[in-house]
């Protein structure tokens, strides 16, 4: 937990572009909330690695959203079931069901469908909110946080120094 807070502060306090951090978290939301071994997560991984998103933010977000997914699975199941059994989309689902690539994706699973729909809908709003929040944080809270005893204590720890030395690749982006 302590390590996660330290990582978060490290990312937020870095020079990384807020868009890179928020995009990393948003991709983490998709990968974390949906079943990990799904075809779409291969695309997410490709995007995370090829686009210059913050990997630390992605990894941190992945851990966080995977945890949340355990709690939200019943909700995803309900959303998925509602969507998949809706007569409105029946034609589309039938078409996709007969396509090999979509069957491989497993879209007809209630949790896959529910969590994917949930995370895609939230993707853009979350991206914009996070961008805004990170900017506001850096403008108003960063200096205060740097001066807090907790932060000073963190900076003094061996863990923080080690992390700082190895995290260049992700944050330098």
């Amino acid at each position, binding site marked *: 937990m302590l390590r996660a807070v330290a990582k978060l502060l490290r990312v937020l306090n870095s020079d990384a572009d807020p868009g890179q951090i928020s995009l990393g978290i948003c991709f983490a939301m998709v990968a974390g909330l949906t079943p990990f071994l799904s075809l779409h997560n291969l695309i997410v991984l490709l995007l995370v690695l*090829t686009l210059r998103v913050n990997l630390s933010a992605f990894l941190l977000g992945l851990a966080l959203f995977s945890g949340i997914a355990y709690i939200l699975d*019943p909700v995803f199941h309900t959303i*998925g079931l509602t969507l998949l059994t809706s007569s409105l989309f029946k034609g589309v*689902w*039938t078409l996709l069901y007969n396509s090999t690539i979509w069957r491989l994706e497993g879209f007809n*699973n*209630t949790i896959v469908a529910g969590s994917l729909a949930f995370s895609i809908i939230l993707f853009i709003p979350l991206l914009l909110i996070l961008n805004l929040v990170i900017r506001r944080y850096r403008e108003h809270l960063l200096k205060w946080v740097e001066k807090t005893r907790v932060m000073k204590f963190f900076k003094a720890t061996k863990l923080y120094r080690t992390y700082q030395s190895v995290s260049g690749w992700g944050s330098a982006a």
Partner: protein
Amino acid sequence: MKWIRWKGLIAFIVIIGIFAGIWFAFADIFVERMIEKNGTRMNGAKVELDGADISLFPAGLTLTRLQVANPDEPMKNALEIKSINLKLDSLNLLRRKVIVEDMTVDGIELGTPRKSSGAIGRRHSAVKEAVRRTVCRDFEFSLPSFDVPDVKDILSKEKLESLEAVKSLKSEINKEKDRWKKQLESLPNKEKFEEYRKKIEKLTASSKGGLSGILGSVNELKKVQEDLKRDLESIKTARKGLKEEIKSLKSRIDKISKEPLKDIQRLKEKYFISPKGLEGLSEKLLSTRLCAWVEKARAWYDRIKPVLERARQAKEGGKGNTKGKGETEVIKPLRAKGFDVRFKEYAPMPDFLIKTADASANLAFGDINGRLNNITPDQDVLGAPLTFKFSGASLKGVDSVDITGELNHIDAASPKDTVSVRIGGYRLNNITLSENKALPLVLKDGIANLNIKVSLKGDSIDSKILAGFKSVKLSSAIEKGSNQLANILVSSLSSVRELKIRANISGTIEKYEIKVSSNLDKVLKDAIGKQVKEQAAGFEKRLKAQVMAKVNGPMGELKGNLGGFDAIGGELSGRLNSGSGALNDILKKGSKKKGVFNGIKLPF
């Protein structure tokens, strides 16, 4: 700021490569574990594989040494297969459908020994075995005694039904007699008819006083005549009823007089072996063994049934879901689980299908080869039943084997399964036909021709077994001190050289009936018939004498009791004569009056 990170693409390729490498390295183990885990769950005992090998181009799978432990005998394999080669449809595999184009099963062996126990600690099988034993216990029997019982002893403890019937009818006759006596009291008697006569005398005497007097007496006479006729009619009806009553009672007495013979027959059958009692002895002898075989087949069918009936279960589950959609709570789906919603497929294919499977079994008497088609749990999707055909010729100890069958579960609500087995020239040794303690039976040697047809429609079973045995040697190791009958039967069985057995099994899978007929019945009947006949005749004679001695007295009394009705009948006839006399008087007087009124029509 550049948004593309080309190094990332390399990293992606490397990561995917690592994952693919790991998958390829461990996929074999994963498949092996998956088959073992699911197989064990379905079988109820260990299912083990020595190895699984996945090939990508072309897509295929090779399984080496599959061992399926026998849940009833965990130290034995019910089935052991040397190798299984599967050619998979790779495109359908991507659609999460396992379609096996061709499967080759080599080296099937049955009942091979295991090094370690195949039990998985479930008591399920033991419970079923206990149930099976209970079912087959219904077919167990004991041989009747051949000793001649004492008639006096029998009659002291047995109630004679004929005697009871005599007592019952006697009491009924007495009640009827009383009723008739009461009825007699209410009917017009001789005194009443005498009154009528006096009245007539009086009326004819008073009619001498003028025309009005004559007319008045005529009317009076007419009234008396009508009353008299009514009384006579009531007596006639009563006499007719009495005659019918007597007739009915006589017929019942006649019937009861035959009852002692039934008593004799019943007691004879109960206490003394008769050739008739030996009818169906082969059924009694062989049913338990047949039941055990049926139960074994049923146990295996129970194991494959859930696989064949996935459509039925899905329908039943579907009903539950529909209900559950609104009413039940989805508690907490496991991470990344949930339900798969199915949609209409343009070209429907089952989730799992083995189109053809060629199998070769190495049995004790040689190799049997066969082919299975359409192995799938989704026959409703495929629209075709599972069929199989196995055959073998010139085997060791068997001339020919043909097994064909069809498991049709296309319509999950009314499945139809048929299996036909023909085995020719099967040389048998030491086959236990009956384990019954009263008469254990072992087929030491013999050549069998078997024709078995089993049909299962829903829960109804209809099975026909025809078995012909030649060069038969039967033996029976009965215990010392066994009854005389058992000794005679064993001696006669040793001379049997040809055996024909016909068995029908019908009913439901849970409750079925086994009917067996065999030439053994005649052999056994003939063997003991002569000896039984002599003893039976003596026993019957003694029994008849004693029963008749008991019944004859009450029967005589019963017939005598009927005599009481004659007196009632005589009384009724007397009253009828008296009444008729009075009526004749009226008619005579009336005709005299007609002379006075010549030309005038009188009312009588």
